[in-house]
């Protein structure tokens, strides 16, 4: 029996079955083969469903299954590691014309994928705020500090209110979700930071200045340059408030002082 023939029929119900298949009686051959077709499709759709619960809530269960099936046929898994499966869903959604009327759906998928990524990213010890204390007496050195991020940190910027929409969908009651959604303008641009802490991934909304600051740090800019970038766009940028938040969330793993021989940890 050729595996090529088998898999062609597996993903395409119109394909004729491999001729070598035998089951108890001829009439039930296709029903028996359908068990495999069903196992493959149902299990892969279930993985996509589990990974994208808010995308599912936004389009409804039945339509989601239709879209997930199309995705599976377009992007079958290339590896047996199912934690890696489904990353391309947001790009697929961006080109899937039936959902063109929901322009934020693709970014929502990106946010949900980032949650999976953050959950399974490498572990790294968090950097404590105490390690910055020696620098506080020397503002010149403090300004030149560069900070490194936890591997689980993801920063996303969207033209849509993806973080607010995602958070609204975390209510248990359908009525609470509806009233939360009624307050949201989906066309409000948002930035969001995801980080894993105590084995859970949390999602944090950032304002414009905070987003610019965190993105600059992530690019490897010094504290001073990151601060200037944020202040350039946001007059009310509050350095202390965002730094306290980031340190509390444990997003940093270390720091480096370019120009000094001293590197992380301080």
């Amino acid at each position, binding site marked *: *029996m*050729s*595996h*090529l023939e*088998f*898999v062609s029929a*597996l993903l395409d119900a119109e394909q004729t079955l491999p*001729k*070598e*298949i*035998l*089951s*108890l*009686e001829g*009439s*039930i*051959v296709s*029903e*028996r*083969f359908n*068990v*495999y077709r069903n*196992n*493959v499709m149902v*299990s*892969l759709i279930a*993985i996509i469903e589990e990974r994208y619960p808010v995308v599912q809530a936004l389009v409804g269960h039945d339509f989601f299954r239709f879209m997930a099936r199309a995705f599976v046929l377009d992007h*079958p*898994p*290339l*590896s*047996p*590691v*199912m*934690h890696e499966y489904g990353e391309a869903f947001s790009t697929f959604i961006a080109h899937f014309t039936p959902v063109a009327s929901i322009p934020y759906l693709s970014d929502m998928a990106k946010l949900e994928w980032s949650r999976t990524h953050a*959950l*399974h*990213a*490498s*572990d790294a010890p968090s950097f404590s705020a105490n390690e910055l204390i020696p620098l506080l007496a020397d503002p010149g050195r403090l300004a030149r500090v560069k900070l490194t991020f936890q*591997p*689980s940190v993801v920063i996303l910027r969207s033209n849509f209110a993806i973080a607010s929409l995602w958070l609204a969908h975390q209510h248990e009651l359908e009525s609470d979700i509806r009233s939360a959604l009624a307050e949201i303008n989906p066309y409000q641009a948002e930035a969001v930071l995801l980080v*894993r802490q105590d*084995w859970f991934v949390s999602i944090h909304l950032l304002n414009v200045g905070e987003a610019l600051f965190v993105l600059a740090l992530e690019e490897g800019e010094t504290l001073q340059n990151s601060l200037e970038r944020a202040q350039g766009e946001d007059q009310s940028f509050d350095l202390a408030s965002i730094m306290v938040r980031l340190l509390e969330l444990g997003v940093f793993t270390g720091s480096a002082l370019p120009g000094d021989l001293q590197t992380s940890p301080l």
Partner: protein
Amino acid sequence: MLPQRVGLGLKPEHFRDILECKPEIGFFEIHAENYMVAGGPLHHFLGRIRADYPLSIHGVGLSIGSEGELDQAHLLRLKALLARYQPDSFSEHLAWSSHGGTYFNDLLPLSYTHKTLDRVCLHIDQVQQFLNRRVLIENPATYIEFVDSEMDESDFIKEMVLRTGCGLLLDVNNLYISAVNHGRDSHAMLEALPLHDVGQIHLAGYFEDKDSDGMTVLIDHHGAPVSDAVWSLYDCALRLTSQHATLIERDYDIPAFEVLKAEAQCAERYLAGHSVRPFMPNVPRVL
């Protein structure tokens, strides 16, 4: 080697219960691929649970029956996982799940030809050599058979075990499912297997459906308690085998840990009825 006890599949929803209550469970089993991630809670909790319990690692994605070569990247991932957790047992399936670079996420059936046997044995040799350990290979649950098969499944398995020195993971549920789906006698199928090479036993629940002509078809879905028919076949298997480490698999509709624990205790009662002893001389040794 696993203890002669009953184990349970380890589920993330039970991590905290297990660590808090330290239940009396013989061992835990994980699917290798579910732990192929860089870091995070899966490794954290598995590491802590591993410190307290024997561990079996069960692969579902190696595709030993593939027409093509084994996936080297996957073998490397397995080797790293086994090095990290030092499991008491490693097992895989007599099946294929990849073709031409695509992974189908299901255990697909093989035709039992001499050509397939050569290929499966070559792949098992490669796996055992690369991982530097004996692997157990699980008998499949199947829904179809192939006209080009040249031998019975049991003869295929016997020859595979003989040639490669691998062990048999006797999945009693799969055996029962295949017997019903192909109209065979499950006891005869059991007795035809190389039972002296059983290294572990699996039990699980199936889903019962009907073909359009009214015939029963059993689907291996691991979403229900073990059926009476499988318990009874298990009782026979315990009589005929000397390695009794038994796993209860549950992958869907996962109930509270206590429910699975009660099912494990039920299996422990069967085990207690068959004290472990050397291989029985009145059972023909098939070699």
